[in-house]
């Protein structure tokens, strides 16, 4: 799929398109999702939430360091918020949960 084709349809043709347009996509995705960096910070298959989160926090922190070095303080502030958000949800997840699990349907 070409970028023009994507722009006219608003849909990708296959998973490969994300790789193909990756760098051109970032700003679009950042705008759509209102985030400072277009990076997945959720879970991936086979991961526990804790592992996923630790990895994302690590990644965001190195981006934060880079932003501070470049004196891009606006980006740094937003990254810091994103990191705080992830760490807070980690804290919430560590609380003993009484959430009832429901497996199969009646």
């Amino acid at each position: 799929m070409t970028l023009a084709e994507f722009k006219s349809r608003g849909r990708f043709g296959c998973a490969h398109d994300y790789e193909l347009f990756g760098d051109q996509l970032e700003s679009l995705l950042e705008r759509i999702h209102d985030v400072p960096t277009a990076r997945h910070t959720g879970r991936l298959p086979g991961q526990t939430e804790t592992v996923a989160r630790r990895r994302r926090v690590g990644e965001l922190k190195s981006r934060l360091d880079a932003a501070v070095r470049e004196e891009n303080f606006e980006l740094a502030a937003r990254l810091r918020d994103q990191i705080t958000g992830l760490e807070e949800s980690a804290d919430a997840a560590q609380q003993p949960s009484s959430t009832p699990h429901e497996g199969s349907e009646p």
Partner: protein
Amino acid sequence: VNEDAFEHFPHLLGEWLKGSGPDSDIVISTRVRFARNLDGFPFTLKASERQRGEVIAAVQEALDQVSLKHSVVTLQLNEIEDIKREILVERHLISRELANSEGPRGVTFGRGEMLSIMVNEEDHLRLQWIKAGFDIDRAYHALCKVDRALEKVLPYALSERFGYLTACPTNVGTGMRISVMLHLPALTLKEQVDKVFKAAQRMNHAVRGLYGEGTRAFGDMYQISNQTTLGRSEEAIVESVKAIVPRILDTERQMRGQLYAEDRSLLEDKVLRALAVLRSARRLNVQEMMGHLSMVRLGIDLGVISDVPLRLVNEMFILGQPSHLQESQGRKMSADERDIVRAEMVRSMLATNTN
């Protein structure tokens, strides 16, 4: 399993319509949805007929492997009549888009109609779990279980950078959408819904009318959902919806109280007239029915109506939809005919089910 699935549809309703669950005075249901695609296939819109067939086969095999196949019903949507697809839409088991699209596509759902797995929607897989009331945790955890079983046997399309890859960039990342269905009659009567919409939008949540076109919501039913899926973890999305919905509930409850306090007789009149129309009308179109049911629901919450169970209101709401009505009669009907049959059905349901 195919056709008998429809036998109970005109009578029995899914678990989420029982009118219970947390905050059931306002929240009808909570739905969590994951968008997933299979690696190695083009997304549905670009997939050939044969590839779509292969996706269906792969999903079926996976469901078999995770032994989900026995408690569920699977339908090949391209092989059933239009009206049956419409019924599935009315029951929220499939999307309007899936019903109207072409080619090999299907749905697998649980007998309680909480779990639904759409195949070859815009994404290869759309997994959803619906619970009655405001109950994100239960819906989310139940759906995670299904997703985690499937991820062991299905190769999902992924990237480290962007997470779960989806046909539309608005779903990429977690692929997760939480939608809470709300009944907001007081906010609607007070013309405050727009304000709530705008506040939700500022927090990256979308609110839309669930029935009806554009901004006019029939039956005062609205749906609020998270708008962003990338750059936030699943937990963060759960927390954000958990933070915003109670604010809307507070405002709606406040407005209900205000309406009642300001002019009790006016409100009682509105509510009881609505019930009287439902009990007596000889013709009811679907918008009218939904409008009156909305007032009756409000009346039940305010204690003005005590002899109609909430479950019955939900039942009339769904069973009175056009395709359910036609299925119950076993034939196609004109809009006029439907209005007559709908009025009959509502009258008799109210006569036999009230306390």
